[in-house]
């Protein structure tokens, strides 16, 4: 349905060509996931002939609040919000609301009276990974969880994973924080491999792809690639590349689609501006990319 | 004599018995006794490192004496102050040897530091009153410094005046003066002595520490001598003399100040190139239109009052301060000196005015302090050869008789005199043709002072041209072949060794009239 929707949009965009001004603030631009989101947004705005202002909050809610305030000053028509924290941003959203600017939240929900949310279900992302492992390990085994920075998106993934393995015989033997980047992911994995001798780990759940790759590097350098596999979240280009490599131990990644998400959000936003009614929450489904469906996966 | 009786009659206001002080193992004071009487000036004598300052720091609560090591009786009761505050509250005033000023603050605040400033009923400082109070102290000292001036813009001597003013700014019953005159010139010193006499009349007990013999006999009533941290002798000043005191201090005989045998006079040397020639040098603020020559083998003294501009003169010659006009010639050829590096290249060396701020690397060893300027002489390709360094350092330590545990000891552990010798050694190591000395013996004891004088004199005989700034007239007269006198940035007088007297120097220093100068030249 993609082409259709965007097709419609082009029409509805025609009648507001040029003078449509959109503000987009992202959690950060240090993670490829958001980078690709921002790029997709830029391109799509071009298509729609709209002006778009893209800001990144460095995962600092105060900064994001300021950015929304600045959007209001700049008199944007529409705000797309990838909240650093859903409740925390409510204040800023309320301000935009008061200024009569519709706010659509992307990927992460937000309070304070937003028009709608376009999200890929982070909880589900974690759950999918868990289900994969449960099935693969036959409901029994030792897994390592590599957590990320304390933001809702990440926490939902971990929650989804942990809730799903709840009740099975799958034990979390180590839970460390990879701070969402390859560097720290590699470091904690190295140490975890020290603490857990060969043969004791069955699988690793990484809160995002950079961490997954970091973990894989540690695994290879320790020569333990055959011992266990890794499941990440994102479906980012470089993880797909890694999976395509011979003997990659990244078994899967719960692929979200940042580009799709932000485009959809923009469509929804314009619908709101056109006075059409929209559904409150639009979920872009996540699907687990594994070696089996790797080739059919479009990627970002 | 009469007042002498009076003193003995009264009971001591401060009595210290059997005081010991040990710093991390090394004992600095061994069983020291001293008695202070109200209304006396008590001279505390001793070589560098004898323990004078340490003893006084105990009196003023900076240090605590070693556990159960004797007693301090103040007035009637036995005391041990735990910090400077308590001592001060009890009426102990101190002028510390090391300048203890906050350069970022005004003179006023430095004078009143540690006291409660005048404040209104809301506890808000009343600045006009603060400055007024400071001004009163300064005027009473005959100083015309502006209370609102920032201390960082003052010369060392001016800073010392502020230090003194601070001690005088509140009522003290015991006033300790640790080398207050080290960088003062006679004008201020005379003023200071009047103040001291005044305080004595008011019954204040004053401890006076100085390495300048003539002062001791001018001002003090009694003396106490320390040697290597031990109490040697106390007594009325009338019952001693310079040689006797010096003997007590250094433990051996030593005739007063070194006198340089009259160097062969300039006439003989006129035809030669001057080693250093300065023509119409000006920085338009502190140094104005100065011209003079210094010939190889002579020591030229520069006298003057505080702020006369001597330090600024040598600093500009050495490229440490900017010159606006004038030219400098070294060994006849005109040179452009933009930085000390240039100056050193042309064979000029400067032993700066204040050791601590401009001379010493306190975190470094004695040997590096001596040889830092000449490391390149002691390296093969890139690598420094520490052996050859040690070798060279030992030579200087031996020749200049620098008292140190080893060449590797941190220089911070040396006494003032020995630190000064190390700085001089550093400059000798560069084999200079012209040696500029700014107050080379400030705070240096009589023994070391004599040695330094000998060294300087010998250097001159070896063909070095020496320019020596000193505020201590006996020193200038003692070892200079010629003396220039400066006043407000100008040379106001030029005296040959034979015609130099303290009176004449002071006459020029205070801006004596021109025709007399012409008669001299």
């Amino acid at each position, binding site marked *: 349905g993609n082409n259709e929707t965007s097709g419609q949009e082009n029409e509805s965009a025609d009648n507001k060509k040029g003078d449509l001004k959109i503000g987009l603030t992202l959690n950060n631009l240090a993670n490829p996931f958001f980078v690709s989101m921002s790029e997709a947004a830029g391109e799509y705005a071009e298509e729609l002939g709209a002006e778009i202002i893209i800001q990144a909050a460095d995962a*600092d809610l105060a900064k994001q609040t300021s950015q929304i305030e600045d959007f209001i000053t700049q008199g944007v028509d529409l705000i797309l919000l990838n909240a650093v924290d859903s409740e925390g941003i409510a204040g800023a959203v309320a301000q935009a609301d008061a200024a009569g600017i519709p706010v659509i939240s992307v990927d992460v929900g937000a309070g304070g009276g937003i028009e709608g949310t376009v999200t890929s279900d982070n909880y589900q992302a974690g759950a999918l990974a868990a289900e994969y492992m449960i099935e693969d390990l036959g409901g029994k085994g030792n897994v390592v969880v590599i957590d990320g920075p304390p933001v809702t998106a990440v926490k939902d993934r971990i929650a989804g994973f942990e809730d799903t393995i709840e009740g099975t015989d799958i034990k979390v033997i180590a839970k460390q924080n990879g701070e969402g980047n390859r560097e720290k992911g590699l470091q904690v994995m190295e140490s975890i491999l020290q603490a857990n001798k060969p043969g004791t780990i069955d699988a690793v759940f990484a809160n995002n792809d950079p961490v997954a790759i970091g973990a894989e590097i540690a695994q290879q350098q320790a020569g333990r690639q055959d011992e266990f596999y890794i499941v990440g979240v994102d479906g980012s280009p470089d993880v797909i590349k890694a999976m395509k490599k011979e003997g990659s131990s990244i078994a899967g990644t719960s692929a979200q689609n940042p580009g799709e998400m932000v485009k959809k959000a923009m469509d929804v936003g314009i619908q709101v501006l056109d006075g059409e009614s929209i559904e409150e929450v639009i979920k872009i489904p996540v699907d687990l990319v594994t070696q089996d469906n790797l080739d059919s996966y479009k990627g970002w | 004599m009469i007042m002498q009786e009076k003193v003995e009659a009264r009971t001591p206001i401060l009595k210290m018995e059997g005081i010991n002080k040990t710093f991390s193992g090394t004992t600095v004071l061994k069983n020291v006794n001293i008695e202070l009487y109200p209304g006396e000036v008590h001279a505390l004598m001793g070589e560098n490192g004898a323990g004078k300052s340490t003893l006084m720091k105990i009196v003023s609560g900076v240090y605590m004496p070693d556990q159960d090591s004797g007693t301090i009786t103040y007035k009637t009761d036995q005391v041990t102050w735990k910090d400077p*505050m308590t001592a001060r509250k009890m009426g102990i005033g101190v002028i510390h040897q090391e300048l203890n000023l906050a350069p970022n603050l005004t003179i006023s605040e430095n004078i009143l530091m540690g006291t409660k400033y005048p404040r209104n009923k809301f506890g808000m400082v009343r600045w006009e009153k603060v400055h007024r109070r400071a001004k009163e102290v300064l005027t009473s000292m005959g100083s015309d410094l502006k209370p609102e001036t920032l201390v960082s813009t003052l010369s060392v001597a001016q800073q010392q005046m502020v230090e003194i003013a601070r001690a005088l700014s509140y009522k003290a019953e015991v006033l300790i003066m640790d080398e207050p005159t080290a960088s003062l010139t006679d004008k201020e010193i005379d003023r200071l002595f009047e103040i001291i006499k005044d305080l004595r009349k008011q019954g204040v007990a004053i401890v006076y520490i100085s390495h300048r013999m003539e002062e001791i006999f001018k001002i003090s009533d009694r003396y106490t001598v320390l040697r290597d941290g031990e109490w040697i002798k106390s007594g009325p000043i009338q019952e001693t003399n310079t040689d006797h005191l010096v003997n007590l201090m250094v433990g051996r005989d030593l005739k007063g100040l070194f006198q340089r045998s009259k160097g062969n006079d300039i006439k003989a040397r006129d035809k030669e190139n001057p080693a250093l020639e300065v023509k119409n040098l000006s920085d338009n603020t502190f140094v104005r239109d100065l011209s003079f020559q210094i010939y190889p083998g002579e020591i030229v003294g520069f006298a003057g009052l505080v702020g006369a501009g001597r330090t600024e003169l040598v600093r500009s010659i050495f490229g440490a301060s900017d010159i606006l006009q004038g030219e400098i010639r070294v060994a006849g050829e005109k040179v452009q000196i933009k930085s000390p590096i240039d100056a050193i290249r042309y064979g000029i060396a400067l032993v700066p005015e204040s050791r601590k701020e401009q001379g010493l690397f306190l975190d470094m060893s004695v040997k590096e302090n001596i040889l830092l300027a000449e490391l390149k002489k002691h390296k093969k390709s890139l690598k420094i050869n520490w052996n050859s360094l040690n070798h060279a350092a030992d030579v200087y330590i031996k020749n200049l008789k620098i008292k140190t545990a080893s060449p590797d000891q941190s220089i911070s552990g040396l006494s003032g005199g020995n630190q000064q010798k190390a700085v001089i050694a550093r400059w000798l190591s560069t084999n200079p043709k012209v040696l500029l000395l700014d107050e080379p013996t400030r705070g240096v004891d009589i023994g070391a002072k004599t040695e330094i004088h000998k060294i300087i004199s010998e250097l001159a005989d070896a063909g070095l041209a020496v320019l020596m700034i000193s505020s201590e007239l006996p020193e200038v007269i003692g070892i200079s072949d010629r003396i220039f006198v400066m006043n407000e940035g100008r040379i106001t007088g030029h005296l040959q060794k034979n015609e130099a007297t303290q009176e004449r120097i002071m006459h020029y220093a205070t801006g004596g009239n021109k025709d007399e100068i012409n008669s001299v030249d």
Partner: protein
Amino acid sequence: MKSILSTNQQPAAQPPVQSRFKLGHHASTVWNQLGMVIILILLCIVMSVMAPNFLDSSNLTNILKQVSVTAILAAGMTIVILTGGIDLSVGSIVALSGVVSVMASQTGINPILAMLLGVGAGYLVGFINGVFTAKIGLPAFIVTLASMTYVRGLAYVTSGGYPVVLESNTFRFIGSGSILSIPTPIYLMILVYIVMFLVLKYTMFGRHIYAIGGNEEAARLTGIKVKKTLVNVYSISGLLAGLGGVVLAGRLYSGQPTAGNMYELDAIAAVILGGSKLTGGVGKIQGTIIGVLIMGVITNGLTLMDVSYYWQLVVKGGVIVSAVLIDRLRS
């Protein structure tokens, strides 16, 4: 000789005020500030030309609101730096105080009390910093670096890593409310700076801060209670950071364990831009607020101009150096 000891005398001839602006550090820093004020103005002119609606009154209040928290931190940082110290823990304190106060208010206690708890937490951390630095004499940098780490940890632990939601409107008011259509944080910020100005210029505590920064040894010898003063200085810095945390929580309707990250660097940068020296003794609170505004204007302006995020970093860095550079060249 009375004159030396007694002070009841005729005032000295020349009025001090006059000559104060001729000589001395008063003058020099007055110049520094002027210099930075000029740079701030220049910056505003550039921005108003290049950035749409920069000069809107709404945007100007915006800027003030956005800098308020950093400004409050920077005020405390100023006195720490004046003593020659440094405080890296303020950013983490912002987080801890926010989390603590919000969780307190969730228990339903009086919101004012809850806020005070947050401020108190900050004060406590600052006090500990002071004790380790002044009393025990450990290097301030390492002590506050450690605090920065463990305080952040505590913020996570107490909140379980999740942001805690703030319901109380009274509490929210301190961060998001406004009086006469001027946001509350701005009033707070101004208040803090006025008080700090008076403290530094007219109280013994303030003068002791300068004395210690100028020459700690001299301060000690003249009987100034150096350690006590330093402990108070760090405590105040902590307290103000705590206040900043409360304000931010009110602004964000929540206590964020991740809040205040890197704020310490912004605060320090503002203080130094404001003409203070890290070696201590030199600096003024008026300078600091200018420094804060410069930083704020840069960030706000670049956002308005829609400079891409990555280039914003580049430009921001460039502008900071240029600011001090111009100031240097000017004098």
